[in-house]
């Protein structure tokens, strides 16, 4: 049913597609690495954009470490998830700043918190990059002590730490 000519034509179509894909991905500022980081035991999953990262946040990569920082006080946990998720449960005393509504909410956030504040962002864990994006946005508007708790709310809750 599939003739030799058809196979040749399919190879040509696939060849054009693969070549075009590789060239565009290589040249595009939104291009990604050929192999991404998809192992949650190694950290937050990401397709690894190839554009150079101008800024990388410090990562807190265990719930126990996050709890130590929490207990030390003088730190502001910022929840990057949606307002609904925040309402359902969050780290005690955390404030909500959904990354999707950053532009609308950052002004009132700036009015309430000094850019010197020590901030820890979090979202839904290692399959979620929102806390990293929020940390970068906060750094862009002048916050200088921002780190990311990469296990997020699920990691915190799984350890049986207090929530509200």
């Amino acid at each position, binding site marked *: 049913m599939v003739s030799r000519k058809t196979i040749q034509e399919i190879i040509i179509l696939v060849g054009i597609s693969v070549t*075009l894909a590789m060239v565009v991905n290589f040249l595009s500022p939104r291009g990604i690495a050929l192999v991404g980081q998809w192992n949650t035991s190694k950290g937050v999953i990401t397709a690894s954009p190839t554009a150079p990262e101008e800024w990388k946040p410090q990562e807190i990569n265990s719930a126990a470490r996050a709890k130590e920082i929490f207990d030390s006080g003088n730190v502001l946990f910022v929840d990057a998830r949606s307002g609904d998720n925040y309402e359902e449960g969050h780290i005690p005393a955390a404030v909500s700043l959904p990354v999707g509504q950053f532009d609308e909410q950052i002004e009132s956030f700036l009015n309430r918190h000094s850019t010197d504040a020590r901030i820890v962002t979090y979202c839904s864990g290692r399959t979620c990059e929102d806390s990293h994006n929020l940390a970068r946005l906060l750094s862009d508007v002048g916050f200088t002590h921002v780190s990311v708790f990469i296990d997020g709310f699920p990691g915190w809750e799984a350890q049986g730490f207090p929530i509200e």
Partner: protein
Amino acid sequence: MSNPRQSIFNNSWIELAARWILGLTFIYASLHKILAPADFAKIIYGYNLFPEIFINLIAIIIPFLELVTGFALIIGFYPRSAAITINGLLLAFIVALTINLIRGHEFDCGCFSAGQSGYSRSPKVTLIRDIIYFVFGLQIILFKGNRRNCFGGLISG
């Protein structure tokens, strides 16, 4: 006259319409994946079916396969082979969606990017839509007569 089944598969206007519909759909579907390959890669990860090493390659290549074969269908460049390639892709999508429906796997990373990029459609709706596209593809593959060019003129030979 010929039986209805034969006339559907031999009608060159239906064949042209199928090529336009499938072609435009695939070009449209490819564009936002090409614009946001990292988001698309995460959706592929979310299917929980592919080895980690291949996820990015799939995310890079599939959108361009959709774009090139979609364009080929419309301009009538290797239309039958383009339709076979598209049906191959559709078959892969159908199998992947079916596996996840059967095992009840639905990925929700709780992320903004994934929620906003329009992928939150129900998998059942997507599955039915893909099966309809597959039938369009079959029409193009099984068509026996002279095909028309993209403006409707008959291509002889």
